């Protein structure tokens, strides 16, 4: 087919191209550039090739050890909060009212934690957990539980996890609730007629109908928890020791604390790559789940 040649169209694409170049491509290329060099004071740069990347993936070096340890902590953190928030979110969604003014009341209450800025959430829990003036910290200690998130690793982890569950379970619950609401009444009526128990209704109707929103919930929660920075930084500052230092905290320490731009650039590229891969896996799984819905033609 013959197309009209119209070179003027380039001028229409140009602004977008410039914006993307300035906001994404140039900064990214700068990072790539840094990741290949070593920095010293006075803006002196020395070529280092793929040295930093080699170190990153080698646990015996300082950089690699710190990166892999924080990555492990991060993955463990994500696994724990997903294991808590997803089932809890489903239970909350199932017990939410289906109609009347209570729906609105529930939705508002559930949305509240989602609307609080990250650093405020961190500050709330930082104070809430303090053994001297925090309500929770003081209460726990006064009933004989020796709780101190500043000095005890387990307490620090528990605080960070409970904080995340408090902050984000409503997101999972709201998504599940939306999924539940979209199930037509006929399904419940048919299940009644078929004599299904409450558990059978859950496994045969509600869970399968929720699986798409659950996938989205898992994706969002994984991403958010994998990038988590502000809340644990405000509460524990990554401590005690390095016990709650996640990848993002480690990255900021290297980049801004030590001003090791080369190491930090390499780390952030690998970090970015991991996120891209996870995104791609989820995307593939989700599109496959969607394809399964479409009826096959010519059957029956």
């Amino acid at each position, binding site marked *: 087919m013959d197309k009209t040649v119209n070179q003027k169209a380039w001028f229409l694409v140009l602004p977008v191209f410039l914006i993307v170049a300035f906001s994404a491509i140039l900064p990214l290329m700068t990072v790539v550039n840094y990741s290949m060099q070593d920095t010293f004071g006075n803006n002196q740069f020395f070529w280092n090739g793929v040295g930093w990347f080699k170190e990153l993936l080698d646990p015996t070096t300082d950089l690699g050890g710190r990166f892999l340890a924080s990555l492990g902590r991060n993955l463990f953190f994500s696994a724990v909060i997903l294991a808590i928030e997803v089932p809890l979110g489903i239970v909350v969604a199932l017990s939410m009212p289906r109609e009347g003014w209570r729906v609105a009341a529930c939705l508002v209450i559930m949305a509240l934690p989602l609307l609080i800025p990250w650093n405020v959430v961190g500050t709330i829990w930082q104070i809430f957990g303090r053994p001297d003036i925090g309500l929770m910290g003081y209460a726990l200690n006064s009933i004989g539980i020796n709780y101190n998130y500043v000095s005890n690793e387990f307490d620090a982890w528990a605080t960070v996890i409970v904080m995340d569950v408090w902050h984000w379970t409503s997101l999972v619950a709201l998504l599940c609730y939306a999924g539940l609401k979209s199930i037509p009444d006929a399904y419940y*009526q048919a299940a009644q007629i078929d004599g299904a128990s409450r558990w059978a209704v859950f496994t045969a109707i509600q869970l399968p109908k929720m699986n798409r929103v659950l996938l989205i919930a898992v994706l969002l929660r994984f991403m958010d928890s994998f990038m988590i920075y502000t809340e644990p930084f405000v509460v524990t500052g990554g401590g005690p020791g390095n016990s709650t230092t996640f990848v993002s905290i480690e990255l900021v320490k290297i980049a801004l604390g030590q001003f090791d731009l080369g190491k930090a650039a390499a780390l952030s590229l690998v970090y970015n790559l991991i996120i891209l891969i996870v995104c791609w896996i989820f995307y593939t799984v989700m599109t496959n789940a969607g394809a*399964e819905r479409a009826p096959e033609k010519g059957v029956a």
Partner: protein
Amino acid sequence: MARIDLVDLAHSYGGNLAPPESFALKPVTMTWRQGGAYALLGPSGCGKTTLLNLISGIVTPSRGKILFDGADITPLSTQKRNIAQVFQFPVIYDTMTVGQNLAFPLKNRGVPKTEIDARVADIAKLLDLTPWLERKATRLTADAKQKISLGRGLVRSDVAAVLFDEPLTVIDPELKWQLRSKLKALHRELDLTMIYVTHDQTEALTFADTVVVMHDGRVVQSGTPAELFDKPAHTFVGYFIGSPGMNIVPAEVRGREARIDGHTIRLDRNYDGLPPGAKIEIGVRPEFVDVAAPGSGLLSATIERIDDLGRVRFARVRVGDAKFAARVPPGFSASGNEAGLRFDPSRVHVYADSLLVEGK
């Protein structure tokens, strides 16, 4: 399998204290015989789905009783009623195969595995689903899914009745006909009471041996398709059934004569003693009014248009202010707009306040 009796059954979604006129289902007393094929026919919002949901137990009646074989089951839950229901949109359990879907109601009731397998195989054969038993049910077309919904009802050997709530709404037209014949065949084979809700008169008249017509929360007539056609008990039935519907026009009726627009039509029966003050109308199906050349003794009318339905032609005519549909006899060709109407006196019915009056 059971005979179903409704005793003074009524329902209001606003509760029992709501004003009687607002009831979604006004009090009804009737019997559904064991093994009958019934259709509940009426326009949207006439209460037919409410009646169906009352029988299946999804809705609890505001008043009245439902008896299965004489036993009062009104307080029983849906699970305990042994009712099967097929909904407007196919309900299938996504994660299960066709076979597991069919087995689900039996599994829930703790039926032994061997018995489940045997029943599922039987029902699958009956519904031509055998080749798909191992397939995921989500992947099938709407009509196959609807068959699965039906199969889940039939798989229980003890169902008292199978209820259908407009089950063919989402099915392609060509498959509708097939599925309907399948239902009919199943009915003959299984000797089940079937109640079929629809707003489509063709579906109702072809499926059922008894059609129950509902209007505004009331059962206005229940009878065979022929009865509904020949002798509508309510002007609504006349108008709703038949295509085009019955002609219903205000008239003065005295003895054996009806007067429309100054013209007299002879009646077969005597209608003395009509209730005074009632709104009197006569009703006649278009099939029993012939268009003829204008002449004395015929009701004169103006032809507005002629619809050719293939096998038969109907003229839309105007008599005074009233509109009429009338059959155009083969070979008749209108000269100009003027025509006369010839009535078949035995087919002209008289209605007082919309209800059929039996002449003597």
